[in-house]
């Protein structure tokens, strides 16, 4: 039976084609990028951040589920697991960013940093060797945690109990790495700007993107009848509720970050928002407010929308797209105060997105679609929502 499933188009031939399409998109972006190298680098860095944030978000959700001992998520956990296993791929694709850091990061441009009164003070921390080392360490910790979770899910009971015990320290390590990764990879793009909540903003947003993809793929597999076990409306409903909550939480964090900076009106902080409210970026900011907050809040508030296969799947896909928009909004304006949107940007985000989706589907096809060694699986499949 598992033979039949993995030979199905979605888990068999599609993943590889998606990944190939992704590679093709990236190659095309490189080709177009030769015309204007910095523009390409900014787009590549955005796409890469988007992709790696999906894996970070999935890892966050998995760790949290282990920590609280959630049963409902067991049946659908393979989707998130596969997403969190993609860190090695992202590590390889980070090389162009590392090589061209001086063009992207103000502090990496040593000439410029030496004359900046703020940046010069940070050079002990923000320098290329240490930055690369830290990046490697973050990715190593992330991948190590993902691997532990994956192993325990493949092996069954003894490791699951151990995993529950490890989830606490794992979460601590994760939170620290994710926060400093956000500071390093994204926040430091904005030069002297700083915001203490930025780490949380980053990984909550990442979790909305990851859960969006998770929900979309769960719905897709159900639609094609590939689960083979009763995974269905109840699991999607819980995923959608989770995603909805995270969307609200993201909005809470995003709004307060803005409001506190708006109130204090310190020039060393406000420029981050000033850049994002003119020269074309105001449309992206507005689109985020409407698309990442207002629309999902009202469209998916009700129980019926969350439980519908089509609407629920659409909710997932929509939040994935909104997260891509959010990443673009976080990264690109720091280097391009004038908004630029063209083939290069779209190709980079599309390419990384396709790689992520293809990678997840490919890994899904390689192991049983549900963790059949997990003793909680039966309870998870019997899930019934209360009235």
């Amino acid at each position, binding site marked *: 039976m598992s033979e039949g499933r993995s030979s199905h188009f979605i888990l068999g031939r599609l993943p590889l084609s998606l990944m190939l399409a992704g590679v093709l998109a990236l190659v095309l972006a490189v080709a177009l990028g030769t015309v204007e190298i910095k523009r390409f680098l900014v787009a590549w860095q955005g796409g890469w951040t988007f992709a790696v944030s999906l894996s970070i978000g999935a890892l966050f959700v998995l760790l949290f589920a282990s920590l609280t001992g959630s049963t409902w998520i067991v049946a659908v956990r393979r989707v998130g697991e596969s997403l969190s296993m993609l860190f090695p791929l992202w590590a390889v694709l980070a090389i162009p960013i590392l090589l061209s850091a001086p063009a992207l990061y103000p502090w990496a441009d040593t000439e410029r940093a030496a004359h900046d009164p703020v940046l010069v003070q940070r050079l002990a*921390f923000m320098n290329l060797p240490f930055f690369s080392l830290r990046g490697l360490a973050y990715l190593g910790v992330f991948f190590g945690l993902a691997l532990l979770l994956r192993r325990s899910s493949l092996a069954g009971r003894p490791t699951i109990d151990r995993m529950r015990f490890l989830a606490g320290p794992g979460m601590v390590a994760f939170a620290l790495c994710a*926060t400093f990764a956000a500071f390093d990879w994204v926040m430091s793009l904005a030069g002297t700007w700083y915001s203490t909540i930025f780490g949380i903003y980053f990984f909550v947003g990442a979790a909305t993107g990851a859960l969006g993809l998770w929900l979309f793929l769960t719905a897709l597999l159900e639609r094609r009848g590939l689960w083979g076990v009763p995974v269905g409306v109840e699991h999607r409903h819980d995923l959608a509720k989770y995603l909805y909550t995270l969307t609200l939480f993201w909005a*809470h964090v995003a709004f307060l*970050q803005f*409001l506190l900076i708006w109130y204090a009106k310190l020039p060393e902080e406000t420029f981050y928002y000033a850049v994002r409210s003119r020269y074309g970026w105001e449309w992206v900011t507005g689109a985020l407010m409407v698309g990442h907050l207002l629309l999902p809040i009202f469209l998916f508030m009700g129980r019926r929308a969350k439980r519908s296969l089509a609407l629920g799947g659409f909710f997932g896909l929509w939040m994935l797209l909104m997260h891509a928009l959010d990443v673009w909004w976080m990264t690109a304006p720091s280097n391009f105060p004038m908004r630029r949107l063209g083939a290069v940007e779209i190709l980079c985000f599309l390419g990384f997105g396709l790689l992520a989706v293809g990678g997840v589907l490919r890994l899904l096809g390689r192991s049983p679609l549900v963790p059949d060694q997990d003793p909680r699986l039966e309870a998870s499949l*019997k899930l019934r929502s209360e009235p």
Partner: protein
Amino acid sequence: MSQAAAEAYVDPSLTPGELTRSIAEPVEARPPRWWMVGAAGAASLALLFVGSVGWLFWKGVGVWGLGSPTFWGFDIINMVFWVGIAHTGTAVTSFMTLSRQPWKNGINRIAEAMTIFAVLCAALFPLIHVGRPWLAYYFFPLPNSMGIWPNFKGPIFADFFALNTYLYVSALFWYLGMLPDLAALRDRATNKIAFWAYGLLALGWRGGARQWSQYQKAYLLMAAIGTPLVLSVCAIVSMTFAPSILPGWHATIFPLYFLTGALAAGFSMLGMLAVFTRSFFGFKRLITEKHLETINKWTLACILGVAYVYLVEFFIAWYSGNLYERFTIIHNRLGGPYAAIYWTMLACNVLIPQLFWLKRFRTRQNLMVFVCLAITVGMWCERFVILVLSVHRDFLPGSWGMYAPSLVEVATFLGTIGIFLTMFLAFLKFLPVISMAEVKHSLPSSHAGSAP
């Protein structure tokens, strides 16, 4: 799903009838001796509040230790302290209801009571802080002959609404949850006063299926309101400080700093109150060691959140490259004149709670009370650090100064502890301390016979 997990938290041999008796009897019986002594002590302590506030009104705010540059002292420190403790009750009930966590059944009523009494204590402080409390109605956007409105853009205005809303909605939620239990007390009443009092509050509840279906919907809706309410109230309380430009106050993480700090303070206080209630009332079969362990796990999780914020604050202060940020957050805290309080805070909030990684500390009552007490002290120190250490040495060394509370301020604070304990003891005596309907609902025997 929640069924299987719920069973582990309740003694499965209990019958619904036994449950009603064991929860209702302490309410109906004559109060025990320890209660009389405790209530007398707590009420005397509460009188301290009346006395010190009376003195304050008679003499004026000069009796407090406030003065340039520290104009916010004990009044606001203690307001934030009590508000922090208050946040857990509504969070436990709403968030745990929405995420179907079965352990909340035994202790949510206690948590909600704690919330309401703590908000009441907190609300007393801004009232006396404004100096002329008889003019406090100016906060309300009331049309008046001078044609002026409050400053709606100011965060203090939102703060006023946040505190009131939190008190009001928490009380509604508490009452809604208690409704079926009040009916049970009404039905068991043996004297006229109890019958009328509980009967009036129970609204004539009959437990009909039509009523239950609306009730469950209303309860879920309240939970759906309560969860974002807790988030927003924490954020707005933090906006008493964060919108300013003072280093140590102006940090975008403040809304979540206050949230995680509030939950840590609240969970540790809840742990102590749960231990107190179960030991004195003999509720050991209803508030089990598993409940205590779960509370302590949440305390640990929130404490780790607090430690995360300390770390990020430190790092960003350095990273900002801003002289004043670095001075206030790093130098003045670690080595300034109030360093003792700061290090106490670190020890109590970061170091000692790590003991909760050990199962022994999570399940043994006396060990756990020690850790919870330490966190409560640590949280108070944290409020002190946030308040005083940011203002007593500002941008200009010429205007630096020190702050020490006067006796009147200390007495006012001790008085609110008395008020809190008095109200909590009254709650233990007069209201059902554990939600009977919810615990019965979670008993395995209550479903064995029911249709699928």
